[in-house]
Each structure stands twice: as C-alpha cells, then as structure tokens.
C-alpha cells in the first residue's frame, strides 16, 4: 500500500518519522522549520501512544528527548541553526550515554541570528560532533524529494542500531518544496527490536543506570575508545553517496543537499554544450563517503566543491582525496541560493581554465 503523494519536504520528514515508529517529539518554535513542529503536533495528537510537547526551550526539548530515549521510545526533536546550537549539550549527553535519537536541523543563514534563508553553514557543527567532548554524530544529507522519506527511516534505524544520535541536515528550501513521494509503510513501535538497556523500572531484574559521568580516568578513557570503535564500525558500514554522470567526467562537482540539486541542474546545462562534467553527492556527511570519492580519483583530476557556505565540506573532500586531485571551491554563504545557470558558468570557466576540453 505504497501511495504516491504530493507533500512539502518538512512534512515528508515528519510523516516518515511517525511511520518509522517515532512516538515522541519535543520542539520549540523557530523559523524556517515551524511547519515541521506543527505537523508533529497534529500527527501525535492522532496517535494513542504519541507524545508531542512544545517545550519551553530548545534545551528542554533535547532533554525531554534524552528522557524519552532512556525510556525506550523512538524520539525526535528538530530546530534550525541557532536552536541546534542550544541543543548541543544534550546531543553530547546522548552520544556519551549511547542513546538513540534523531535531530533535524533545517539550516539557516548564520552565524548568530543570521537570517532564515537556506544555508549549509552548520556543516562543521554537525560533522564534528557539535557539542563538547570526543564524539561524532551520524549526519545524513538528503537531496530532497524521495530521499527525505527514505533517509528519515534510515535515521531511526541507524540511531537504534548504533545507539547514537543521528542528525538530518535540511534547509528551508528543501522543507518548503512540494514533491511527489512514496511514503514508507508504517512500523508498529511494538514490533521494533527490544531495547534491553532501556530504563523501565527494575522489575524482575537488577536495577540499572544510564550515566555519562566517569570520574575514574581509566574508565573515561575506555569509554572514549569504546565510542571510537563504534564510530569505526559506522565509518565502515554506512557511508553513502550518489555519483551522477561521472563515468566519462573530466570535472566532478562535489555538493550535498540543496547545493547538489542546484549543481545537477548546472551539469545538465553544461552537458548540453558537450562538457564532460559529473556530480558526486555525499549522502552521509559523517561518515564521509571517502572511499567512493577516492575511487573517482582514478579517472578524475579536477573537482569543484560547491557549498552554501564559505568552505567547510571542501576540507573533507581534500582529506578524502589526499592530494589525488585538484580541489576548487565555489561558495554562496549567508542564505544566498545560487541558480543552476550561475553554477553552470562557474563550471564552464573552470573547465576551460583547466583546458579540460583538450584532454582526450
């Protein structure tokens, strides 16, 4: 019973979360992601086992999620950049206490209050942990449309499987766009794998606790190594990327999320005039799909990283290629959204500057 429906992006994520068995949502008003919270309010109200709380702050919202997660629920919160900064203490606790949770960041222009236009300025914050301490979060960057539904389900699966917070990076443009999607079948939360670690009251078993304080240095070091081993597994198991028209490409644009969508439009245009240009679109930003990008470097030398910021993911591209390619950058920060034509021009001039048309 997979129906195709026309929905705005933010609603696709929200509905997909519910269908993935999310039964706890806490959030706080912030533009440009209020439709998401409002959708959750109505959806949870219609579910006997659903909880929606409009929290008094972003901080309270993430801490409610910590509690809900401790109790075993699939729990979620969402916000936009400044609000996500406020949640970072809680995200650090989720990582330390090894609790699953899904956090949606509909990124907006920053730093500070910034503006409410689409941005990718939080790339570093998301992919480098974001809060204090030595940890990472899984970061998923949907390209829009169907992927919003697919990756939201995946986010909850990853969170449970690895007992770690998962961040979905979106932006206002993606959130507003109406697109046809096939929603996933609804999961019955009762049929999800049990969580033997959850807090439920010590009935018929010894009591247990979930904590992050480890005053003993040896214990804290061991916890850090334990997390590191988990992150190694994640890095091996889930990296994902899309390669588009890369087979014969002499230049590859590297972009994620909305930027990748714009880049795709640009690539279609330059292909029409015979330029051999492809797109590499990371879908997991952490772990970064290093290997797939590295493999491209066997046939591609020139890379153009396009981001809606002043240059953040470009560092991961360089770290992945380790010198096996020339990395160029084009950015539009502060909420500016480039058009496919603009990117096509950038691609075109780089293509000719590097004399790629002369290569055989």
């Amino acid at each position, binding site marked *: 019973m997979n129906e195709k429906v026309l929905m705005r992006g933010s609603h696709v994520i929200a509905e997909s979360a519910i269908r993935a068995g999310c*039964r*706890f949502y*806490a959030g706080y008003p912030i533009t440009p992601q209020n439709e998401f919270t409002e959708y959750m309010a109505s959806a949870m109200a219609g579910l006997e086992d659903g*909880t929606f*709380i409009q*929290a*008094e*702050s972003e*901080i*309270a*919202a993430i*801490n*409610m*999620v*910590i*509690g*809900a*997660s*401790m*109790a*075993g*629920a699939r*729990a979620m919160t969402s916000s936009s950049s400044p609000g996500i900064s406020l949640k970072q*203490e*809680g995200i650090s*606790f989720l990582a330390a*206490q090894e609790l699953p949770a899904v956090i949606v960041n509909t990124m907006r222009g920053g730093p500070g209050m910034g503006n409410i236009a689409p941005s990718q300025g939080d790339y570093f914050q998301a992919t480098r942990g974001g809060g204090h301490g030595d940890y990472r979060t899984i970061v998923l960057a949907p390209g829009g449309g169907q992927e919003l539904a697919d990756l939201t389900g995946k986010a909850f699966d990853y969170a449970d499987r690895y007992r770690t917070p998962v961040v979905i990076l979106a932006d206002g443009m993606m959130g507003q766009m109406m697109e046809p999607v096939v929603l996933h079948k609804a999961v019955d939360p009762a049929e999800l794998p049990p969580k033997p670690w959850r*807090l*439920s*009251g*010590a*009935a*018929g078993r010894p*009591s*247990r*606790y*979930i*904590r*992050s*304080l480890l005053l003993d240095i040896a214990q804290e070091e061991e916890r850090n190594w334990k997390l590191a081993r988990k992150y190694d597994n994640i890095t091996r198991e889930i990296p994902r990327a899309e390669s588009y028209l890369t087979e014969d490409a002499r230049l590859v644009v590297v972009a994620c999320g909305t930027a990748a969508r714009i880049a795709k439009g640009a690539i279609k245009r330059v292909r029409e005039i015979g330029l051999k240009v492809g797109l590499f679109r990371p879908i997991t930003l952490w772990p970064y799909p290093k290997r797939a990008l590295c493999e491209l470097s066997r046939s591609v030398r020139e890379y153009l990283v396009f981001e809606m910021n002043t240059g953040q993911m470009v560092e991961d591209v360089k770290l992945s290629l380790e010198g096996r390619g020339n990395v160029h950058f084009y950015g539009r920060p502060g909420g500016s959204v480039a058009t496919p034509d603009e990117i096509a021009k950038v691609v075109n001039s780089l293509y000719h500057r590097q004399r790629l048309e002369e290569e055989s």
Partner: protein
Amino acid sequence: MEKKVFERPRYLKKASTHYCPGCGHSILHRLVAEVIEELGIGERTIGVPPAGCAVLAYDYIDVDMGEAPHGRGAALATGIKRVLPDRIVFSYQGDGDIAAIGTAETIHAANRGERITVIFVNNGCYGMTGGQMAPTTVTGQLSTTTPGGRVPLRDGYPVDLSEMLAVAKGTVYIERTSVTSPKNILRTKRAITKAFRTQIDGLGFSLVEVLSPCPTNWKLSPVEAARWAEETMTKTYPLKVIKDLTGTPGQDGN
C-alpha cells in the same frame, strides 16, 4: 526472639557513601529508599540524579536511574514519564541545579503539571564545586564567591523557588522540611511519601524541598551545621506545607 528494629532498606545498595560526615544527602537517600519500599513501587520507579554531590545517587539508591545534564532533571523526567506514564519518576536536584541553571525546566514542568516528583535539596551553596553562592544562599551568608557575605542588591536576593512554584497551577503538593533533627527527618519522610502518593494518584506535580546541612562548605561541624540550618536558614525558608491540593490530611492532621 530477637526483633529487628533497624535494617538497610531494600532499595538502598550495600555501599558506603562518598558524602561528607553530617551531609543531608545520606539521610535523604535513605528516606527516599524507605518510602519507595513502603509504597511498594521499587520495581516501577525511575530516578533522575543531577549534576552535583548527588550525581552518584545511582550508586546508592537501588532503582533504575538516568543521569541528567546540570539543571535539566525536570525536562528529562518529563520525557521518561510521558513515555512510561505508569512508572513513578522522580528527580533529585540541588539548589543550584534546580533554582539557577534549571529554573526554566523546573517551572515549566511544574506548570504543565507533569506527574513527577522532585526532591529539592537546599543546602544554600554549590557543594560539589566547593561552596560558591547558590541561588538559595541566604542574605549575609559567606560563600567562596560572596567572601563578605551575600548582598542582595549586588548578588541577588535568596530565591524561594518553592513559593514560586506554588503559584503555578500545575503544582499539587509542595512542602519544605529539613533533616536537622529526628522530628524533622520524620516529617521529611512523611512529605516524601505524600509527594510520591500525589504522583501515584496522578494528581500532578509534587515537590519536597529539604533544608540539608553541608558542613564541609559551611565550615561547621555536623552538629553546628544542623543547628545553623534550623536557626538561620529557616528564617528565610520556613518549614511548612507550601501548597497542598491533594485533599488528604497534612502533617499536622489539617
């Protein structure tokens, strides 16, 4: 035949605590464990310890526990309780935790009438960090950050969080007690029992504020500290039932 008149409560772990001699936490942990046993809720209770001296409460109280970031106990407990409404959820919080960094979380959980119970330990200082001024430090009280004593128009007035919470419509039962004498300890136990009952009956938010000696940071002997709490702290924080909408008899039968 011998009659056992004193034993370790079932929900208190066999461990010696890290608390200083004369510290109120040790007594309070025991009271909480006794009440949990007497109410028969040990297998469905989930506790939320704070940041502060009581962060290790899970080493002593033998029920499921989930540690909260500093000040966030009420929000975290809200999350647990909403997912598991038939469990008994309590947070255990110090004065800095609940009345400074966590004021918003506490007031709003109270205002939503969350069916949780809060044990609020007021010792007038930040104990674990070494005795800095707390929101509850009384006027004139010395602390490491009020070396000449607290001056309200510089440092703020002592915060009476319990009275503030009583204004919130979602709160059902709030009482202030102390653990400075056998009589007060018994009152405290009755108050904790009533607070848990309030939750069991699904009535709303309940809180017990307990004046609790911190001899170490007050730089007093345990006996002097108990006396100071009784004689000086109670002038700012009188022991009383602050709010009771439970419809059941109070401490003094009224």
